[in-house]
């Protein structure tokens, strides 16, 4: 593995960011981690928090799936079931998937990839972590206070009238929004102002383009969620009637407000995933990315077009037919930049020297599964078919294919890719491959039957159903156990690797982006001297010239 400078190995006997301060005693250690402004430590704390809530929300999902194994409601009452799926959705969306890649991986990787020593506003970064924890505490309080059953979407009029700790949940989500906004703000400024010398916008790794597009969305969309939730709270505690038809209000207006954020939110979830895949597909095919410019600009296009399409969640809500047609039309546009990416990634692999290691297996899973998820989105954006598919399991399967396979599987790929850099150890590669395979199988077994049952009319959010769907549900539940087993396997071998894994090489993948130029794990200040960027992010030194296909 060659480096164009050897600063990265010049340790000056400086300890890595993980242990810095440990030798000074427990008080200093705690202070060093909980009052840190080091983006790497903040990233690790986010990682732990997010994975913890992933576990909780995953357990809720297993409860839901177990109830659904049989057509009769034999495990939970209707109310309990509603609470279970609301818990799963609410925690997954607000506490896990939205912060997943930007906060847990992005915080760690972004300044390193830029060649910067930290983000632009490190204290704001710490604040965003604490705001996240505060929002999490409020949501947990709502859960412990009896749970809420409005669905994570908090539609009026039910959410304004439901008895229970809904207000606490709304306040929790409101708070979490600000954590997201602060992270986005920080990333935008860092990317604009703190790139290493020689790194123009079009020499940035595509992960950064993805995080940039995500940050734009986080900044602009999330405040509208905040005001929406605030208005629902106002309606609950004071009877302000903006969404209440009895007082002249309009409940569908709340859906406009809500989805104006929540649609761009799904791009917050997926754009960073696209960034990870760009990195992984290029490094593990050892080939320059195909269509760099197209991928970079398509990321920003998706972010921008994503603001125009929210009404496709509302085709049957009571909004006018004309606006349904308008939103349907606009939604088709957002598929185009996404497809461009898929073509580019496949084009990258073509003629490359592909290594079937764990990150690559996750990448291949993503490409296959996200393609299915994305294509099924077309059925949903077509108003005529959506009328039949809305509120069925088809929608559930669609968004799990794009979110769970999209965001989660790519996150796992990214975690395995950057693991050596973050922790300095290596995980067991065999177990890694097995885990990836089990997750792929479990995922498909869980969610593919749901497309079938949805298209046959199985409604979502129902805890009892007609017996015709039982075999498909049974298959889906078994699949969820397989998926859970795969995820637990990953958790176990990663925990083992964290504490007992063999020391990792400085750059086990031979990547050439700047984060691999530093020590593994990095020192506290990332770089001793600001690196200078002299080549593109995927200019592998020994690209096979003879192929003639590698130059784009």
């Amino acid at each position, binding site marked *: 593995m060659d480096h164009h400078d050897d600063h990265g190995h010049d340790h000056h006997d400086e300890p890595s960011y993980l242990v810095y301060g440990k030798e000074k005693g427990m008080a200093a250690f705690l202070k060093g981690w909980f009052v840190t402004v080091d983006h790497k430590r903040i990233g690790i704390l986010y990682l732990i928090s997010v994975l913890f809530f992933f576990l909780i929300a995953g357990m809720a999902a297993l409860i839901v799936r177990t109830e659904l194994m049989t057509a009769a409601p034999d495990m939970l009452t209707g109310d309990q079931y509603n609470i279970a799926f609301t818990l799963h959705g609410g925690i997954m969306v607000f506490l896990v998937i939205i912060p997943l890649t930007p906060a847990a991986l992005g915080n760690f990787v972004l300044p390193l990839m830029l060649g910067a020593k930290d983000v632009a506003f490190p204290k704001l970064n710490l604040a965003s972590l604490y705001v996240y924890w505060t929002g999490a505490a409020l949501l947990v309080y709502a859960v412990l206070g009896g749970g809420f059953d409005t669905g994570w979407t908090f539609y009026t009029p039910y959410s304004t009238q439901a008895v229970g700790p809904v207000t606490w949940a709304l306040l929790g989500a409101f708070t979490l929004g600000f954590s997201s906004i602060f992270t986005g703000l920080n990333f935008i400024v860092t990317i*604009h102002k703190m790139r290493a010398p020689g790194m123009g916008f079009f020499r940035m790794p595509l992960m950064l383009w993805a995080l940039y597009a995500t940050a734009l969305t986080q900044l602009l969309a999330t405040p509208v969620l905040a005001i929406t939730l605030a208005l629902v709270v106002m309606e609950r505690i004071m009877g302000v009637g903006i969404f209440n038809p009895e007082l002249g209000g309009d409940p569908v207006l709340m859906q406009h407000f809500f989805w104006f954020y929540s649609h761009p939110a799904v791009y917050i979830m997926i754009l960073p995933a696209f960034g990870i895949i760009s990195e992984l597909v290029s490094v593990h095919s050892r080939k320059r990315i195909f269509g760099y410019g197209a991928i970079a600009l398509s990321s920003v296009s998706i972010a921008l077009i994503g603001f125009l399409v929210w009404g496709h969640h509302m085709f049957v809500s009571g909004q006018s037919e004309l*606006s349904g047609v308008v939103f349907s039309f606009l939604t088709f546009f957002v598929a185009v930049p996404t497809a461009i990416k898929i073509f580019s990634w496949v084009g990258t692999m073509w003629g490359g020297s592909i290594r079937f290691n764990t990150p690559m297996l996750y990448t291949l899973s993503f490409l296959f599964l996200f393609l299915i998820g994305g294509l099924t989105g077309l059925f949903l954006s077509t108003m005529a078919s959506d009328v039949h598919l809305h509120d069925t399991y088809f929608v559930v399967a669609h968004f799990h294919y794009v979110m769970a396979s999209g965001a989660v599987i790519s996150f796992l790929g990214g975690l395995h890719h950057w693991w050596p850099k973050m922790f300095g150890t290596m995980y067991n590669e065999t177990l890694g491959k097995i885990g990836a395979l089990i997750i792929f199988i479990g995922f498909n077994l869980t969610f593919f039957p749901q497309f079938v049952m949805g298209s046959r009319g199985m409604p979502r959010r129902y805890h009892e159903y007609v017996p015709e769907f039982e075999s498909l549900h049974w298959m889906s539940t078994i699949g969820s156990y397989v998926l859970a087993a795969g995820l637990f396997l990953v958790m176990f071998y990663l925990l083992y690797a964290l504490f007992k894994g063999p020391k990792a090489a400085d750059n086990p993948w031979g990547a050439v982006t700047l984060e691999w130029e530093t020590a593994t794990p990095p020192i506290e200040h990332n770089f001793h001297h600001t690196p200078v960027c002299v080549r593109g992010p995927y200019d592998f030194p020994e690209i096979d010239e003879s192929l003639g296909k590698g130059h784009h």
Partner: protein
Amino acid sequence: MATPKNVSHSAGGSHAGEPHEHITPLSVYLGVFGALMVLTVVTVVISELGIPEPWNLVVAMIVAITKASLVCSVFMHLVWDKRLNTVVLLGAVFFMLVFFTLTMVDLLSRGMVDEINDQDVMLEEQKAVWQSCMDEKQDWAACKDKLPKGYWFKDPNYVEDHGGGHGGDHAKDDHAKDDHAKDDHAKDAGGH
């Protein structure tokens, strides 16, 4: 880089390395302040002129946007700052307008397609209740309970604006009120 017009002069070595920024002349600030005061008066005056809807709103917004532009470009320094900051501001405004526009596309076109008769019946019921409320000069609290549950599409005073005269509609509404009074009770008994 911002092109400095009035560069602050470093007074000696201790200020070396300080970034140079444009200092706005006092006269410019005073001028803008004066303009804002004048425009505030203009805002009030034109509201008294009785310009018909919706142009009164358009004119008011033009004045407000002018004032806002003065504040942004001079007080907030955007004219002399990096252009990126202006892009940020305009970007936020753009997305806000996207929000307004697409939502209003929905609200403005509701009921355009004549789908279910029930909607018109409900609308007539609501108009009837409001009309009786206004006629009997009852106050808000008493009226609220008489309203049938359902969507509102138009201001109840809409009755007067749209032809049919007061008397004609009134007669129809009395009928509507009587016929549907029983329906309301039935609904209340059966519904939630």
